[in-house]
Structure formats: structure tokens, C-alpha cells
């Protein structure tokens, strides 16, 4: 675990080195800013354009969080329903798979035609991108619950729903968490794609306008913000997972052992 954390911190110097190479390369090569701006220029733009960037970022963030929340909530409901009903599994699973094969860039404009240029079509695009990993990971985790545990609780006279609530759902929480973490990384990108197909605000919209005016530094500033949002959401889900599922952390279990157990008889 400690080793993993040390490896995670290695990402910081790696990232810094990439930025440094980029900065030096642009300076030495005399690359024009409209083609590829230097990181310092992007940072300056982030600061100078903050008054415009902030409301646009807020729009994108709201679309992302609503779509993400909807994807997690409906994804859980769908996975549980599929788990409980073999009939529903046969009916729903093909449609769920089809929903992922639809080319989003072609489908998103249709949503705009149907639902206008407001919030709703963006939330729906984010939902379409984000619900799939939740359903697949949770349904798989529910199906692979340790049969010894479900058998045991059945011998106690538990109903089907009690088995789900007491054993299958808690056992599937780590699987759900990995699906939600994956989805957190996709959700922001979904919102940006939705904004490309028709929006009056949002980072995706701003990104598109900036690149059509060769304001490349502004495009990069938007990209930086979008990435930061995705990373923040991903990390927040990871943190929530650590706090909510303490038994999945081996070092925690051992710490409790020394605290709770005086001496082995």
C-alpha cells in the first residue's frame, strides 16, 4: 500500500517534467502561440480570462454532476433489476449494449433537436456515456457474490430481498465503486461533446469558439480546466470509496486487530 502511494507521487515529477519540456521546446523552436502556446501562456490565459472561464466552467460542472448523478442512480437501479430478474436481463442487456454502440457525435445533435439547447440534452449525453460502466460493473459484482454467504443467509430464513440487502449489495460495493470511478473520468468528456453539438455556454462551447478564432491558448485553458474537473471527480469518488468501504483496506483491518485484540488465547 505504501509502495503504491509512493508510485502515485511519482506522477508529480513526471507531470512537471512534461510541462518543462513543452515550455522549453516551444521557446527554443520559436513555435507561434496560435499553433501551440507555451504552458506559461496557457497559465496566463487561465488567469486573465477567469471572468469568462468561471461561468462557463460552472455550466459544464453542473451538466457533468447532474448527468453523473443520474447515471449512478439509474445504473444501480438497472443493475439490481437485471440481477433479480433473468427475464429483464434478456430484454434489457441487448439495449444497454446497443446504447454504447451509437456514435455519440451523431446522436447528440438529435438530442438538441428534440430537447432544445438547454441543460437537458447535455445531461442526457453525460448519462448515456456514464451509466454503462456502473451497470456492467455492479451487475457483474452482484452475480459473483460468494455463494457460501448467500446460502448461509438463506438458511437463516432470509427472503430474496433480505439476501440482496444483507449480502449481495454490500459484497458488490467494491465492484460498484470501480464502475463509478471509471464513469467519473468519462462524465466530463461527455459534457464537452454535448456542448460541441449546440450550446450557448460551457467549456466545450468556449473551446470551439476559441479554436475557430485561433485563440489556441484559450482552447488549452479550457482543456486544462476540463481535465482538472475529471481528475477531481475521479479522486473524490476514490476518497468516498476509501471512507465508505473500510473493510477493503487490508492495513485498516490489521490496525483494528492490534487495537481490538489483547492476546490470543
Amino acid at each position, binding site marked *: 500500500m505504501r509502495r503504491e502511494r509512493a508510485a502515485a507521487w511519482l506522477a508529480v515529477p513526471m507531470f512537471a517534467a512534461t510541462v518543462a519540456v513543452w515550455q522549453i521546446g516551444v521557446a527554443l523552436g520559436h513555435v507561434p502561440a496560435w499553433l501551440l502556446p507555451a504552458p506559461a501562456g496557457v497559465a496566463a490565459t487561465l488567469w486573465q480570462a477567469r471572468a469568462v472561464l468561471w461561468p462557463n466552467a460552472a455550466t459544464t460542472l453542473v451538466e457533468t454532476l447532474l448527468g453523473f448523478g443520474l447515471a449512478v442512480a439509474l445504473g444501480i437501479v438497472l443493475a439490481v433489476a437485471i440481477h433479480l430478474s433473468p427475464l429483464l436481463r434478456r430484454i434489457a442487456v441487448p439495449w444497454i449494449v446497443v446504447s454504447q454502440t451509437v456514435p455519440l457525435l451523431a446522436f447528440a445533435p438529435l438530442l438538441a433537436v428534440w430537447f432544445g439547447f438547454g441543460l437537458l440534452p447535455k445531461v442526457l449525453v453525460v448519462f448515456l456515456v456514464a451509466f454503462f460502466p456502473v451497470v456492467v460493473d455492479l451487475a457483474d459484482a452482484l452475480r459473483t457474490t*460468494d455463494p*457460501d*454467504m448467500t*446460502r*448461509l*443467509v*438463506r*438458511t*437463516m*430464513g*432470509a427472503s430474496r430481498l*433480505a439476501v440482496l440487502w*444483507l*449480502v449481495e449489495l*454490500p*459484497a458488490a*460495493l467494491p465492484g460498484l465503486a470501480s464502475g463509478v470511478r471509471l464513469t467519473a473520468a468519462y462524465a466530463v468528456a461527455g459534457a464537452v461533446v454535448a456542448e460541441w453539438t449546440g450550446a450557448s455556454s460551457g467549456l466545450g462551447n468556449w473551446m470551439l469558439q476559441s479554436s475557430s478564432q485561433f485563440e489556441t491558448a484559450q482552447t488549452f485553458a479550457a482543456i486544462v480546466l476540463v481535465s482538472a474537473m475529471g481528475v477531481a471527480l475521479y479522486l473524490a469518488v476514490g476518497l468516498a470509496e476509501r471512507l465508505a*468501504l*473500510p*473493510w477493503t483496506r*487490508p492495513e485498516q*483491518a*490489521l490496525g*483494528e*486487530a492490534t487495537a*481490538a*485484540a*489483547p492476546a*490470543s*488465547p
Partner: protein
Amino acid sequence: MDATAAPAPAALALDRVTKRFGGPGDPRPVLDGLSLTVSAGAFCAIVGPSGAGKTTILDLLAGLTRPDGGEVRVLGRNGAGLLGAAGYMPQRDALLPWRRVVDNVALPLRVAGVPAAKARERALTLLRRFDLDAYALARPAALSGGMRQRVAFLRTVLSGRGALLLDEPFGALDALTRADLQDWLQDAAAQAGQTVLLVTHDVDEALYLADRVVVLAGRPGRVVLDLPVPLARPRRREITLSPPFTALKGRVYAALGVGAGPHRLRLEGPAGA
């Protein structure tokens, strides 16, 4: 052996039970008209080779599987009512890793609809009686194998309303822990005051713990020896070296066919050989 002829109602009864896993045409059923009863309050052990139907008998009594013929009764309940009638302890402890020890022990009470606070209180009382309350807030991952089996047994005690079904509870433990747990179980079972049916591969364990040892042979499973164990309680480890104990052990081995010929030496030999 016939359940209908028993004078007092038996706690556990299999009445001419047939069970086949290969469908109605299965030429070799696991059980074919087997009858067996355990009277209330008794500690009965079943020994036999793999494939003689020991685990099937427990699954039938626990309600996890239905017989293809005959009737299974536990404490006056039968059919679908068997689920929830007896406490069942699987080979692997099956403790839920996300529940603390006290909440694992309380699990059967929660399933039965007892409110959380009251279920916890009763589980804690039981843990305290067995000097395990120091572990009450630990998670199962923090416990040793022997400790996990103790917790699993106490959980079984709270799920049994008078009968406990133990499926090779100590099969995965090392020899020393196992001996320790056998002594512990002897005490714990006496305190619980419930009917116990123990399935085991270990002849010493069966004779050391039980009032009665049933030897099964298969397949289909049939009773080849029904042996009372008239050894005084509480039993101590030394008893396993005493002449009465070794005499009983000889009878069980003879019934199992161990030592009867060069190809019958292994307890784990092919079923029905």
C-alpha cells in the same frame, strides 16, 4: 430408526429420503430411502467417506435443497419452513467481511426481524459469555482461523432455535487449533443446550464430541453403524488414549472398511467401493 415409530418427537428427522442430482433417471442417487432421527438435546456426529451423502443430509435439513422423495423435518417444521429452522455452520466460516464481529454474530437475529440495537445487545452478551467481547468490534479479516470459527459458531447458536447443523467446522484448521476448538465446542455446545448434528471426516473428533456416531457408506448413502458413545462428560483429551475410546474407534474403522484390505485403506476412497 423409523421416524414414525419414535416415541418422542425427534428434533431432526429424515424419513425414507431420496435425493438424486442427475434428474429422475439418475441410476445412482446420493440418498435412496434413508431414514435417520436425532432426538432433542442430543449431540450426534456423522462420519463417512466423501460421496456418502453427509453434506447432502445437512443441506436437506437446512432447507437448502429439497428431497426427491420422503420427508425432512426439523423441530416440527418441514418443506419450505426448513429455511430458518436450524442453525447452519458451513465448512468455510462465511463471515461477512464488512460486518464487525458483533454484527456477524447478530446477523441471524437481524434476518429474523429483531431490531438492530437489541440484536447487537444479545450478540454482545453471548460474546461476553465466551470471553470474546474484546474482539466484538474487530472485522473478520483481523481474526485468526480458529477465532473466525468461534465467531461463526456463536452466530450459528443465535440462528438455531434448538438445532445446530455443523458441516466440517474445523476441517480447514491445523491440528493444534483444531484440538483447542474441539474442547471449546464441547463446552459451547453444552452451554447452548441445543441438538447438534456434526458432519466430519475425523473419527477422533466425532467420538470425542458426540453422544452418538452414525457411520455412513455410499453410494447411495446408508447407515452402516449407529454407535452410542457412553463416555462420561466433560471429556478430557486423555480420554482419546483410553481403552474404551480406542475400542469404539476400532468399531468405527471396521464399519468404514478401513484396514479391511489393501485397497480399502483410505477414508477418502471412491464412494461405494
